[in-house]
């Protein structure tokens, strides 16, 4: 059932308005904080009001502009889009609070918060895009809006990272444009919601090119190896930006785009016949393992997080590539699981850096004694990554394994085990040293992180726990993901 609803454009519109207000009136700290936080909250509420309908299977649509003629910029809220929008707007509230605390006394705060709001606006645009072109539009805008954030420090290293970031993502955008044009050419339409735009185009010689272009294009932001090179470099950005890149917006936009390509553009049935996805699954599996090994080798907190992100994202890609209902459920749910766990980690990394000036992992030793709350949040996130039951990460691993078995790919189970071990290998020692070894070389006055930095970390850590235990609670993200899977046509109902 499709319902015309203005809230669909209001949601990205509010962040856009917020950005404009920040740019024009944002010189005053108080006003700026009010705008940013207010917009974040209003948007969250707005999206929550859409939630009940979404759970019942209502699809909200809105057509904004006829650009280009006949295709149009249009919005459409289905289960998958709702899920992504909900995750990103929840996290935006947390990140905003955190950023207000973190960016105190930094330069160019107007620019920072302006583009910050723009990023979130475009992210919701991506989530609500009703066709491939709208998706591409917001995807490109996201690239542009994150650039000033990545190079916020304006140091040579930051500028270099920015260049690398743009080179990767713009090339990816160009590939997506190519893919979009190919889809329009082959299918004559770009609108989502038909369960496979290209279903009628089987056997066309340009079909493989379209698949490669779209997957490679979105794969850049999804950090699919070997397209992942920009992410570790982009770690020079301020921590809230890293959080935004890793959890809320950029990388999630990449995997979200991949999900759209697989479920809405090509469709499960067509892909099952074509067999391209087995290659994609293999690539994802390779990325999971290789990135984990790379993470083991890192000694810097944020760099290890970057490699961990690359590894985690490929869970989602793998889930989508397996083309089975359980795997799809795992893929969608992991958007939230990874987001909350990872953003907790970043909040902790930033809090530690701001409070103690420490950025290396071995310097975390003993911090549990000084900053117990911060390290509690860290521990919860780490356990989730390892995949301990009752934590969010476990849900993903469980359903991904089930999905693998459904697809007859038993190696997925082994892969999950191996990944859990690797995660344990690079997170648990840090947890151990933080709690069970005495602090070293700390200046005497160091205490717990300030509330503005600590609270978001604790809230998101709590959410990680909640996600892990609430899979049977109606109205929680998991049920939404189930609803989404039901609507991904061709996959059938989840149990």
């Amino acid at each position: 059932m499709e319902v015309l609803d203005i809230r669909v454009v209001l949601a990205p519109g509010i962040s856009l308005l917020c950005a404009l207000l920040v740019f024009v009136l944002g010189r005053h700290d108080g006003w700026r904080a009010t705008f940013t936080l207010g917009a974040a909250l209003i948007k969250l509420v707005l999206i929550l009001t859409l939630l009940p309908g979404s759970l019942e299977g209502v699809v909200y649509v809105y057509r904004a502009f006829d650009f280009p003629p006949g295709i149009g910029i249009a919005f459409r809220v289905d289960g998958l889009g709702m899920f992504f929008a909900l995750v990103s707007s929840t996290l935006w509230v947390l990140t905003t609070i955190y950023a207000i605390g973190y960016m105190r006394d930094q330069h160019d705060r107007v620019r920072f918060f302006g583009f910050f709001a723009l990023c979130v606006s475009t992210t919701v645009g991506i989530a609500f895009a009703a066709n491939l072109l709208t998706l591409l539009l917001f995807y490109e805008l996201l690239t542009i809006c994150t650039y000033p954030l990545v190079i916020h420090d304006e140091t040579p290293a930051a500028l270099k990272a920015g260049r690398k970031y743009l080179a990767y993502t713009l090339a990816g955008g160009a590939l997506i444009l190519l893919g979009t044009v190919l889809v329009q050419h082959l299918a004559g339409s770009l609108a989502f919601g038909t369960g496979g735009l290209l279903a009628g185009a089987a056997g066309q010689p340009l079909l493989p090119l379209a698949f490669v272009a779209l997957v490679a294009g979105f794969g850049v932001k999804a950090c699919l190896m070997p397209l992942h090179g920009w992410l570790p470099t982009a770690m020079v950005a301020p921590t809230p930006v890293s959080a935004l890149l890793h959890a809320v917006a950029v990388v999630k936009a990449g995997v979200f785009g991949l999900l759209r390509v697989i479920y809405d553009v090509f469709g499960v049935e067509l892909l099952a016949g074509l067999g391209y996805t087995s290659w994609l699954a293999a690539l994802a599996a390779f990325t999971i393992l290789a990135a984990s090994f790379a993470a083991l080798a890192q000694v810097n907190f944020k760099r290890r997080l970057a490699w961990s992100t690359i590894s985690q994202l490929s869970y989602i890609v793998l889930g989508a590539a397996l083309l089975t209902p359980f795997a799809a459920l795992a893929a969608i749910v992991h958007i939230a699981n990874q987001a909350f766990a990872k953003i907790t980690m970043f909040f902790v990394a930033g809090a530690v850096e701001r409070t103690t000036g420490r950025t290396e992992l071995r310097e975390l030793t003993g911090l549990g004694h000084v900053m117990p709350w911060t390290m509690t949040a860290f521990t919860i996130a780490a356990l989730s990554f390892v995949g301990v039951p009752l934590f969010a990460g476990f849900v993903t691993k469980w359903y991904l394994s089930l999905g693998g078995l459904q697809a007859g790919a038993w190696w997925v189970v082994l892969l999950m085990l191996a990944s859990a071990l690797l995660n344990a290998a690079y997170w648990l020692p840090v947890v151990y040293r933080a709690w069970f070894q005495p602090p070293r070389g700390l200046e005497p006055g160091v205490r717990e992180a300030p509330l503005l930095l600590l609270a978001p970390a604790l809230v998101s850590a709590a959410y990680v726990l909640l996600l892990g235990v609430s899979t049977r609670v109606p109205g929680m993200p998991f049920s939404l993901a189930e609803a989404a899977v039901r609507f991904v046509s061709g996959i059938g109902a989840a149990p």
Partner: protein
Amino acid sequence: MEHLLPLAAALPLVAAALLPAVAWRRPDAAWGWAVAVGAGLLGIVGLLLRRLLQDGPFSYAVGGWAPPWGIELRFDALSAFSLGIALVGVAVLVFSGRYAQAAVPPQRRAWYYSLLLVNLGGLVGFACAADLFNLFVCMELVSVSSYALVAAGGGRIAALAAFKYLVAGAVSSLLVLFAVGILHALTGSLNMADVALRLADVEARGPVLLALGALTAGFMVKAALFPLHLWLPDAHASAPSPVSAVLSALVVKLGVLGLARVLPLFAGLDWLVLAPLHEGLAWLGAIAIVAGALAALLQEDLKLMLAYSTVSNIGYIVLGLGLATPLAMTGGLVHVFYHALIKATLFLAAGAIIHQAGFRTLRDLRGVGRAMPWTGVALSLGVLAIVGLPPTAGFLGKWYLLLGALEAGRPGFAVALLAGALLIFVYYLRILNAFYFRAPLREQILAVREAPLSMLLPVMALALLCLLGGLFGSGPVALAALAAARLAGGG
């Protein structure tokens, strides 16, 4: 009402001749006069366009002499480019008010406005011409005024560039005139529709081919299509910025529009296969996209970068004409219009920045974006548009060109186009980086003030059009599709 068609071109031309006399006692009146005429032109073009959208293309027999005996003017989908001419014209004239005070010596100023009006009138006449010789006369109006305007600001580089431009332009005009002579000798007519009709019965192949070759070569020079672009960068970069805007946005389009006008003349010939010509144009266009972008990448001077970007963008348009499918030509023609708006935005914004800051290389201009926030926003919008980022106006042309390349079964051209677009992005990124994210090299930059309102207003208006033109772009696209259908259908 229908009499407005001949008056559209006549208004600026007569006003141009009167301007020095009017401004003789009161030099300040020149600007007001020119702006008023520009506004009048915009109004007339608006009325013509409304009629076009209501009733379709319409003709006017000047003096009541029925074609082919007399001169016919025709306002069709291709002529709708007049809107671009009028919009850019008004913006440039308004912008010139403050700019010319600094850049054009006082004794030249009235003549400068006069030449600008001649240029605009010639352009509108060219867009509406349905007669080969009338086309030539309008082209010469534009050319003579353009050569001189390049040198209006003074300076040795400008004078040299103007001379170079003059020689290249005059030779290309001669080629066109030569072809007109041949066609007249073959058919005894000058009216384009009539020539096309009578050419179909001509048996001699040699002269037809020669005329086609001369027209193509002549208009290629006018359009600065690679490798015949050598006159362009210096001329566009050394002219006063408003003039650069007119040259880059409008005058080079003369060549493209001319090609689009004359190629259908030859479509009725059974024995003549235009495919090789189209193939050649497509390749030249693709090469121009990449070569222009690469050359722009090497420039340090802001206006030279923009000038080379014009070479690259002409490549887009010609590629569209060369692919010769309805979608591709729609893309090319839509880009004719939108590139005019975008490039005018960029040149005027660059002009405002150079005017305020007094520097013109990227190094010297570092950090200027913070000092001139509004101009900076306009420039950024223009940059995003020229790069072809959705939903700006620049995306539409790219989109239809890509679809057209696939429609023609040439995905290779689509890939080349995307590669070119990426290169373009890289060099525009250099501009944004320098203006916003690098520490200033010159301390004077910190004291630079925002441009005065008379400069800011036209720049902002154009920038807004670059954005809204994309979102509400169905009108231009529909017109371009109409023109493309006529082109593809053989005129």
